[in-house]
Structure formats: structure tokens, C-alpha cells
């Protein structure tokens, strides 16, 4: 339950899609066709990994993004390390449960590599044109 005045969103459906923006061209690995694992390393200043709930909403929040990748909620939930996807705004959510590399290097790498494997590159989709 949230604090008074705070909107509590329902759990996202397992088939829902979330989008993670690429801040730089090197966020994408042309060798693997997937985002780089570093796209999924959490920084100490973050509570979770920021994801948009639509491509347009993601671009609106990150206008400088050079692209994005798509992840499916059920695939995120299937991570061997338990992760939560918490919606915190109409068009935004956070993937939580990821330690920083300083806190737990092994788990942070395991999660980042898993998320990079399940992510689908979304740079060449028509809405970005």
C-alpha cells in the first residue's frame, strides 16, 4: 500500500512489454544483435532499472535515446534471480531487485547478462524513423 495520495498501480500482466532506452550508440552490440550487458547494470544512484511501458513514452522520457530494446514481463520474471517490475507512473516502471556491481558483482553480472539475452533490439522499428 502506498502513502496517502500516492497512486498504486496494479501488477503488470505477464505479456506486457517494457522498453529500455539506449543512452549511447555503444549500448547496442552489433556483434550479438543484443544490447550490451552494461545497459542492465544498476547504478548506486538508482533504485531500479528505468523502463518505459511504450516506445513513445520511453522516447518522451529519454529524448536523447539512440534506440531501445524490448523485454517481456514474463521473461523478466523468469530470471533465476528474483526480480520485480514495479509500475510507478502511467507510462513507466522499474525493474527492481538488481544489486549494483559493488554490492554483488556475481549476481549483478548474472542478471545483466540474462536481461541482455532476453532483450529484443528495437532500434529499427518504424516509430523511431
Amino acid at each position, binding site marked *: 500500500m502506498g502513502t496517502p495520495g500516492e497512486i498504486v498501480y496494479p501488477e503488470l500482466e505477464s505479456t506486457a512489454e517494457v522498453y529500455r532506452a539506449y543512452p*549511447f550508440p*555503444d549500448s547496442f552490440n552489433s556483434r550479438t544483435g543484443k544490447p550490451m550487458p*552494461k545497459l542492465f547494470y544498476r*547504478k548506486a544512484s538508482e533504485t531500479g532499472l528505468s523502463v518505459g511501458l511504450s516506445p513513445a513514452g520511453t522516447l518522451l522520457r529519454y529524448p536523447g535515446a539512440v534506440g531501445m530494446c524490448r523485454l517481456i514481463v514474463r521473461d523478466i520474471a523468469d530470471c533465476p534471480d528474483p526480480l520485480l517490475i514495479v509500475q510507478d507512473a502511467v507510462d513507466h516502471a522499474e525493474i527492481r531487485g538488481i544489486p549494483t*556491481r559493488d554490492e554483488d*558483482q*556475481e549476481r549483478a553480472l*548474472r542478471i545483466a*547478462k540474462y536481461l541482455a539475452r532476453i532483450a529484443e533490439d528495437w532500434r529499427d522499428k518504424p516509430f523511431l524513423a
Partner: protein
Amino acid sequence: MLALNSPVMQQGFFYAGNSSAHGEFRALCPIEGGVVIGPDSLIRTIREIERLSAQGLQHGDAASAVAQESAKRLLSEAQMDRPIYVIPSAIEASEGDLLIHWDTATKSVVLICPASTTKPAQIYREVLDGRRAIHSEMVEASSHSLSSALAWVLRAK
């Protein structure tokens, strides 16, 4: 050119389509899982580290000089231990650290070289079942542990 009696060749990962006449192989050969191997892996990896450092500041994240030197030294020493054939699938800088990933369909190895000398370099290894890791471990990096990990990642089991 790779010798037919080299350990990598004997592991049987090459696509037959990559072989050329006279038992020689092209310089770069993709193997199952997308990993690429070649006889010039070390020099390509070092060049890529240097290229990443040159680009780093533009992209907001650069590996520190300490991290780069540590990676180059470990790779060069590991090459003395056993030839390195596998080319990284990703080299990235994160908060000054340098991370080098070698991935196959069933295994991954990551060399983590920290931004400063206050932390040791480490090696992450994982075994995959599909997209999920079913085993992972961290070990302290040395030329020998890196050499062993890079031989391990190419092994079928």
C-alpha cells in the same frame, strides 16, 4: 592459420563450411553460439580495448588507465600460458571498470578489471541452460585462471 592439431581444433567446434583447402582455416571462424575464434584474437582484443578508450569519453563512460593496463597485462600473460583463440563478444566500460565478455551458447566468461588498484581483477564464469544461468562463480583473475577460463568456455562440457 590454425594448426589442425591445436587444442581448439580438436574440440571440434568449427563449422565445416569454414574450412578451406589444404587443412587451413579462415582467420575468423564463427562457432556454435556466435562466438568467434581466430589466431589473432589477442591483438584484436587489445585493439578493441584501445578503440573503446578513445571513444569512451564521447559515450559518457571510459575505462580507467589502470583497468586497461590490467586487462592488457592479463591477456598477454594468459597468451603465454596457452594461445587465446576466442574473440570477445563484448568489451565495455562501466564506471571506470573494463569488462570483457566471451559468450557461447552454453557458457560465458567475463574478465572484470576494476578502475583502481584497490580491488583485484576478477573472472566471472557461468553455465547456461537456454537463456538462464544454472551455475555461476567468481574467481580472482590471474593469467593462469584467465587462460583456463578461456579454454573452458570453448569446451563442449
